[in-house]
């Protein structure tokens, strides 16, 4: 049995998800025979593409309780986050609003957007979070002032999976006329999200975290009351002037199809993943009782776990588990193997942060994979610790 030639078990669903075959199937004709530019209204090729894009827009809107007109297609969640944060700040600056609030644990692209605003003279408050990874609404309230234009709070965290209390945050923002943006790249289609109930003004959506392809995402922009933002890409005026550029019809179709699948299967899938997560957690804790779970144990994505194994550096552990596709944090920065700023913000000491592993479960994860992962991780951790002790003992003599 050639164990070595088997592809590794994929446990990195927060980095990216495989394209669902059903999604791919819907997309394919739009690459080849139906290739029109959705902006070409003068002929059938263009009109068919435009219709397909609008269908996808409606599918995505339905998943999050929005109107189709409130969806702006983008090239991905990073672009959506940039557009929401910089766009809102720039639009409202002439009205005396120059202060932006975000959590210290936001995704890199939210933090970098804030840095860009700071360079332009905006004030930015990065709020600390609790040990659980959750924001304390009272602390957030204290950070708001009459010049705050926007608060950005991630719906579900990419590293530790925690789900922030968005409705509570919205209740603080709305009466003050402050826009609330949420990076929901990890949350959309994984947990029920309804923009109206939550009171969100702007919400970023990613295709490739939702079993749709890479290179497409969306920004929800509330219409009533209208969330006003400045465009970041000017041009042909596509997407109601908020985001110019030819829309990639097949990718939009893919995102729409993925949204429709998520809408139909979300409850069942979340339940199943929750079961797998609990099974994996119990399995790991039974074998490695000193393993530490980072982030709130309950208020987190069904498909996310983040462990620290004391004394076992993450790069060593990943190297010792070639049969598992794991990561030590967000993919954007996972090539840079330094302790996660997210875990630091939770107050996790550097040695434990450097020993943290993110496990992402998803649509195609199975109980067998989960059991195999627990076993593989546990034996690798034990082996590395023994080697470490041997080395330490050798060093002591």
């Amino acid at each position: 049995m050639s164990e070595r030639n088997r592809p590794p078990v994929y446990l990195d669903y927060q980095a990216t998800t495989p394209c669902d075959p059903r999604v791919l199937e819907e997309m394919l004709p739009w690459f080849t025979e139906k290739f029109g530019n959705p902006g070409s209204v003068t002929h059938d090729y263009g009109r068919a593409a435009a219709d397909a894009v609008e269908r996808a827009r409606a599918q995505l809107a339905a998943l999050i309780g929005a109107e189709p007109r409130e969806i702006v297609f983008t090239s991905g969640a990073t672009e959506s986050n940039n557009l929401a944060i910089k766009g809102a700040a720039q639009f409202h600056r002439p009205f005396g609003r120059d202060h932006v609030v975000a959590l210290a644990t936001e995704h890199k692209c939210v933090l970098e957007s804030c840095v860009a605003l700071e360079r332009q003279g905006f004030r930015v408050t990065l709020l600390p979070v609790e040990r659980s990874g959750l924001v304390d609404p009272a602390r957030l309230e204290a950070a708001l002032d009459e010049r705050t234009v926007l608060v950005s709070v991630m719906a579900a965290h990419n590293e530790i999976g925690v789900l922030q209390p968005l409705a509570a945050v919205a209740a603080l923002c709305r009466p003050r006329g402050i826009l609330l943006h949420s990076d929901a790249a990890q949350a959309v289609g994984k947990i029920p999200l309804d923009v109206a109930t939550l009171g969100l003004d702007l919400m970023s959506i990613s295709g490739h975290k939702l079993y749709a392809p890479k290179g497409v995402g969306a920004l929800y922009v509330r219409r009533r009351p209208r969330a006003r933002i400045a465009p970041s890409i000017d041009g042909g005026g596509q997407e109601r002037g908020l985001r110019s550029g030819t829309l990639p019809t097949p990718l939009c179709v893919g995102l729409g199809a993925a949204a429709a699948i998520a809408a139909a299967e979300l409850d069942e899938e979340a339940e199943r993943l929750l079961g797998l997560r609990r099974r994996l957690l119990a399995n790991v804790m039974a074998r490695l009782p000193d393993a530490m779970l980072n982030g709130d144990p309950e208020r987190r994505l069904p498909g996310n776990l983040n462990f620290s194994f004391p004394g076992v550096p993450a790069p060593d552990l990943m190297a010792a588990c070639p049969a598992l596709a794991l990561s030590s944090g967000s993919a954007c920065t996972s090539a840079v193997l330094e302790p996660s700023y997210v875990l630091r913000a939770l107050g996790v000491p550097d040695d434990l942060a450097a020993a943290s592993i993110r496990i992402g479960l998803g649509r195609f994860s199975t109980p067998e994979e989960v059991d195999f992962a627990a076993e593989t991780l546990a034996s690798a951790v034990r082996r590395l610790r023994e080697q470490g002790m041997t080395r330490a003992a050798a060093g002591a003599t």
Partner: protein
Amino acid sequence: MAATRSTYLDWNATAPLLPAVAEAMADAFRHCGNASSVHRWGRAARGAIEAARREVAVLAGVDEDEITFTGGGSEANQTALRGFPGRRVVVSALEHDSVRAGIAPGDIVPARPGGCIDLAALERMLAADPRPVLVSLMLANNETGAVQPVADAARIAHARGALLHTDAVQAAGRIALDRAALGADLITLSAHKIGGPQGVGALIASPDLPLVPLIAGGGQERGRRAGTENVVAIVGFGVAARAGRERIGDQDRIARLRDEAERRLVAMAPDARVFAAEAPRLANTLAIAMPGVPAATQVMALDLAGVMVSAGAACSSGKVRPSAVLAAMGVPLEIADCAIRISLGWSSGAADIDRLVEAWGALYARTRVKAA
């Protein structure tokens, strides 16, 4: 009601995916990793992206580390234009909306009636203002196909310490690109105009240029464009770039087809007006006006006959707007309103030209009888 065989003559709006591109993309869909992930799937994605980067670099005659993949041509243009906050941005009157949008009239370089930029005006504008400048001049115009004197503009710009950006979205794969010969500091490319997929493009710029990213975040593309790389589309772009390079030779055949179309249309309609006819032109593009017949009417009549063309740029509004390009060339509004764009590509053939000529000729005859 779709006609039995459709004649697609709107290649400047978008080109159908090349079969080889579709194949490569289908293959890439199977290793769907995040290119920044360290594990095997991540590394496969990274390798595929870098291979595509090499192909695009060769197409443009540049080094690989000058290529930044973006979400498309519009994003690449905006990245270039907004990337140098201290510089005044001066653009030609012929530019695509994604370059010209929001530019003050005083910063727009006028065009000449022949379809090319007025270089003397550019020189005057740069001389009159000591501020550092970024000049943007497209390599080939999307509506008329007129190839712009980018190398001359670059010399003028550089003599004044200005940078030069060129939107080569329409030129790529149709005329040879050589960054050194063009003298451009920044170049925009788009995949879907050369048989690659929609949703990916590239901005070419030396790594030494202090370009402020439009999309900040995870540091992908060496900090110039954050966001998980659109692996599958980038793979498609790479294959299309190689095909585009190899297909430059096909332009003679396409030029003959275009010239034949032009000759036959003008022979039928002596009052027809061809734009930028005297300028160096892309082989595939024909902008022509049938005086007295609104472009929308022509486009619809052709559409009913199964011939797809456009009335200028494929933009968002769904409305047929008067062409800013033709206006900049001094074409009177009543003629510009009657201009359509016919653009050919690698699968266009003589039968397509016959259908175009037949349908357009029939409309012309109808309207002239009515007028008489």
